[in-house]
């Protein structure tokens, strides 16, 4: 909650709950931080990767102080429900509180182990062709990439965003992590099984 890494403060707040963005003249309105906390909650629900304090501040044009207050309000609000605001090495994310793990395991026992074909394909493209952008993955797989799959890969800690590709929109570059190597019993990327000639396989098989 306290890792607000960027001390500079150059914010103006333009957010209100129901329509965004919109000018908000009363800068010291009591609901202001409440409203910011809602916007932060939206971003945390929408982001595929964990969000750092500085990226939240940048997206919503917040000062360090505003972010801190809003995060406190968010935490309080979340206490009524089942989610908790968790800070990981790569940023904040919303996760189901640990005390519900038994319920989840009971109802969805296969949820942890099973890796879907789509998830594995996405992971393979990242592992073999890294660094890649989202659209690189979409190009190779020929289908649009679902946010849910990327989120799962980030949650497992198998991929990270690092750096940007110098093209239109400066898309983030995805890499695999040391945790990915651990999970698949590899000591380095050189140990990945050699890649078949996919183009040749694909061109004949259908």
């Amino acid at each position, binding site marked *: 909650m306290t890792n607000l890494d960027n001390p500079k403060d150059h914010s103006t707040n333009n957010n209100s709950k129901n329509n965004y963005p919109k000018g908000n003249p009363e800068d010291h309105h009591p609901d202001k931080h409440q409203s910011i906390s809602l916007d932060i909650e939206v971003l945390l*629900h*929408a*982001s*595929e990767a964990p969000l750092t304090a500085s990226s939240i501040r940048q997206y919503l044009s917040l000062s360090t102080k505003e972010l801190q207050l809003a995060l406190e309000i968010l935490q309080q609000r979340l206490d009524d429900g089942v*989610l908790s605001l*968790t800070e990981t090495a790569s940023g904040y*994310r*919303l*996760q*189901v*509180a*640990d*005390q*519900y*793990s*038994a319920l*989840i*395991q*009971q109802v969805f*026992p296969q*949820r*942890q182990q099973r890796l879907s074909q789509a998830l594995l394909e996405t992971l393979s493209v990242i592992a073999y062709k890294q660094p890649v952008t989202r659209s690189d993955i979409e190009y190779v797989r020929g289908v649009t990439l*679902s*946010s*849910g799959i990327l*989120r799962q890969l980030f*949650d*497992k800690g198998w991929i990270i965003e690092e750096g940007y590709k110098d093209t239109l929109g400066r898309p983030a570059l995805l890499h695999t992590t040391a945790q990915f190597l651990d999970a698949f019993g590899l000591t380095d990327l050189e140990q990945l*099984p*050699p890649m*078949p*000639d996919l183009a*040749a*396989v694909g*061109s*004949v*098989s259908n």
Partner: protein
Amino acid sequence: MNAGSIAINIDTNDSTQSNSNLRIYQTPVQHLPADLYVPPQAFAIWLEQFAGPLDFLLYLVKKNNVDLTQMPILPITEQYLAYISELDTDHFELAGDYLLMASTLIAIKSELLLPKRQNPTDERDPKAELIERLEAYAQIKEASLRLDTLVRLERDVFLALVSMPNQDIMQAELPSYSPNLLIESLFKMQLQANYQLQTHTVKVDAVPLADRIASISRQLSINGVHSFYQLLDRSQGRIGVVVSFVAVLELMKRQLVGVLKADSAINNEKNSEGDHQTNKLTLQWLA
């Protein structure tokens, strides 16, 4: 030749059709849409904006301000063919569907130019059929636009993404079964009168074919040549041999794998491992 000259040609070619709906003939230059002229080199790219020849034809009809139900075929045909003639050989795959449509249009055109038969047969009128298809396509295109206006998940509204609880804690929960399971199983047993008779044999797919195909493809694509024997996974037992054989047949059907003839397999000599009976079936990666 550019689009301007085409449009004027249409005017003079229109001999058989009523042109009351074709306002383009009354004031041809003024109604020639500006976006109809496209430099030939950009033409293929321009054509790619259309979802296909019907879409393109529909565009021409619309630009000419024609009622689809009374569409004069000839001018549209001329216009269409003039455009298609610009397609160069670099765009064969794009040209296929368009050329098919062009031949349909030519067939209709020649039909219209021939003298009418005295006793009309019950053959389908190709022009009526084309108009029907255009209408059906226009309908689907409009439907797709309406579909696109619906509130769509992951464009207009978004699913909430959340993470699951800490993985270690989740793992620790795994072996905990509810004691209710035990008592419930007894209830079920009681409730099921003839439970003894209901023995089900569930056949597990011990060696999935898809897995074998993937594994064999990988091994062969890396090493080029393998004997069938080398491709087997001993842990899979006899069923593994059968499934592997089916997998090889499937790969041969897809022309990814071929059999290397025994006498031509010279590298069999240096490859002396394995008994020579099974070595006779040597497979080669073809892709």
